[in-house]
């Protein structure tokens, strides 16, 4: 065997290697916030959050959605004056739909936050300590898993006659944690056995320090990402519960309530269904996409 002749060997490159490359082939993915999916979903989420926090900014008829009503104009179709039409009570529907964002988003975010905190705490305890702590928490998870989410929420909601946003949050949060706990638990168990945790133990670090410095920071991000993905689902669940009449009750304003009320007017006043449905869908979509984008970015397992 002989190796190639001089001509065939790679020529000496006088130019820096990087320059000869065709830039077209370069897939520069850039920072995460520049990616289209992230950008779109982020904008939706930000807009909806703003709407939930300061509906006055968007609403057409001042700060009270129940002002400017005329019962005689009930269910009027959209017009220049009322761009989303008029609702059953004769109030401006646009204002109402804008105000509906608050309940939905509040429920979505608070329930997710509660379940996040619960999952983080219970999951860490179960994963870190194992033994009977783990057994108890795992069995509790089984219980909460075994009870169908919607049915359990219905039972809880029926404890309250007047159901405000907080009642709904309570009911949804009560059974929304087991998934997160399991996730956190396995992720903590994984981190717990990593060598850097043992290394820290060897240095004589206390359990508190190990949990706070090593376990939590390394297992929380995946959970956070998972939970972001869940916000959309919670918003949807609230609307569904309200729709079958066991979610929010008036005088709360929410998209679920609006949709529930609109059901009887599907053909007579379709705008009642269409507008909150669009808002709800876009919001859920926004949060789900946002969660997906986050997951793709931060969760190595999802890749």
């Amino acid at each position, binding site marked *: 065997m002989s190796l190639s002749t001089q001509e065939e060997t790679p020529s000496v490159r006088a130019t820096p290697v990087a320059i000869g490359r065709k830039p077209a082939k370069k897939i520069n993915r850039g920072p995460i916030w520049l990616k289209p999916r992230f950008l779109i979903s982020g904008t939706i989420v930000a807009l909806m959050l703003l709407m939930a926090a300061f509906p006055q900014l968007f609403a057409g008829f001042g700060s009270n959605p129940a002002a400017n009503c005329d019962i005689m104009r009930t269910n009027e179709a959209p017009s220049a004056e009322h761009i989303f039409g008029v609702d059953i009570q004769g109030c401006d529907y646009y204002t109402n739909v804008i105000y509906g964002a608050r309940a939905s988003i509040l429920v979505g975010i608070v329930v997710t936050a509660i379940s996040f905190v619960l999952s983080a705490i219970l999951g860490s305890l179960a994963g870190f300590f194992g033994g009977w702590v783990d057994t108890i928490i795992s*069995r*509790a998870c*089984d*219980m909460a*898993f*075994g*009870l*169908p*989410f*919607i*049915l*359990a929420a*219905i*039972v*809880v909601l*029926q*404890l309250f*006659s007047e159901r405000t946003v907080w009642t709904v949050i309570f009911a949804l949060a009560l059974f929304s944690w087991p998934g997160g706990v399991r996730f956190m638990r396995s992720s903590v168990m994984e981190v717990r056995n990593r060598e850097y945790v043992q290394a820290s133990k060897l240095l004589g670090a206390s359990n508190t320090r190990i949990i706070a410095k090593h376990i939590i920071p390394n297992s929380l991000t995946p959970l956070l990402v998972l939970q972001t993905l869940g916000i*959309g*689902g919670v918003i*949807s669940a609230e*609307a*569904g519960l309200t*729709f*079958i009449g*066991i979610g929010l009750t008036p005088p709360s304003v929410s998209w679920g309530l609006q*949709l529930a009320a609109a*059901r009887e007017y*599907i053909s007579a006043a379709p705008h009642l*269904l269409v507008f909150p*449905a669009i808002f*709800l*869908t*876009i919001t*859920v*979509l926004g949060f*789900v*996409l946002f969660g*997906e984008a986050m997951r793709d970015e931060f969760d190595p*397992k*999802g*890749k």
Partner: protein
Amino acid sequence: MLGYTVRRILQMVPVVIGATFIIYALTFLMPGDPVAALTGARPLPESTVQQIRLAYRLDDPFLVQYGHYIWGLVQGNFGIDFFGRPVLGLILERLPVTFALALTAWVLKMIIGLAIGVYGGLRNGQAGDHFALVFTVVFLGIPGFVIALGAQNIIGVQLGWVDPAGIRAGWPLAFILPALVMALEASAGLARLTRTSLVGVLRAEYLRTARAKGLSPSRVIWGHALRNAMIPVVTYLGLSLAGMLGGAVIIEAIFNIPGIGGLMVAAINNKEGTVVVGIATMLVLVYLVFNLLVDLLYGIIDPRVRI
């Protein structure tokens, strides 16, 4: 395997007791008087109320009531409702309907979700993948009842392809539409999971081996990738069937399907503790059994798992 099964069954006992306890406590705490529901607008005479309260131990302390309930349950007795009908009978009357619905939805979901997931996974990062994502997420985003109402009106009423409500047409005709709605809503998660799993498997070393053996792409995918990609999916699928049993409430209401969900809601509205707890117990049992079956199945499709 036997030891494993026995251990798992033993583990179920506290879960069932705990779950029924929670539900029992919740129904006990619910405001309102169960007897009131029985009587309608005109109140029953005090004496009759008294008789009923006595017959159903409504005045006993909570724990005593619960103890009686569990004791009955151990003997296979789910109790009777306020109209004297055995609760187990009521549940068994409805459970097959919900089961048919959930199973149909589950199968449809499996077809849709797996197809989209596999498609997306194979087109990882390309346009097709994004399309698959958008498709599933849109159905995830639109609340189920909106899809349900739309489908009912368009396919059921305007096109008249299937009955829009009720199950007179029997299985599968009467179940297809509601099941499809449920399936569309639920297929997003499955599609995502399948996609992720498949993408992971496609990167696995043994697929390189398969390709290095000169196998055709289709053989690589069908023969080597999919079975491995299905391993995590099976768990999810199994548990989601149990979940669908309880999650069909809204769909059942819209399509007038006399399933367990409707019974549960009615029972809750009437504060019929025995029925509510009976259903919850049943569903928890179904969930646990499915959970076990899935884990046993897991051991079959993944030879590495020893149980």
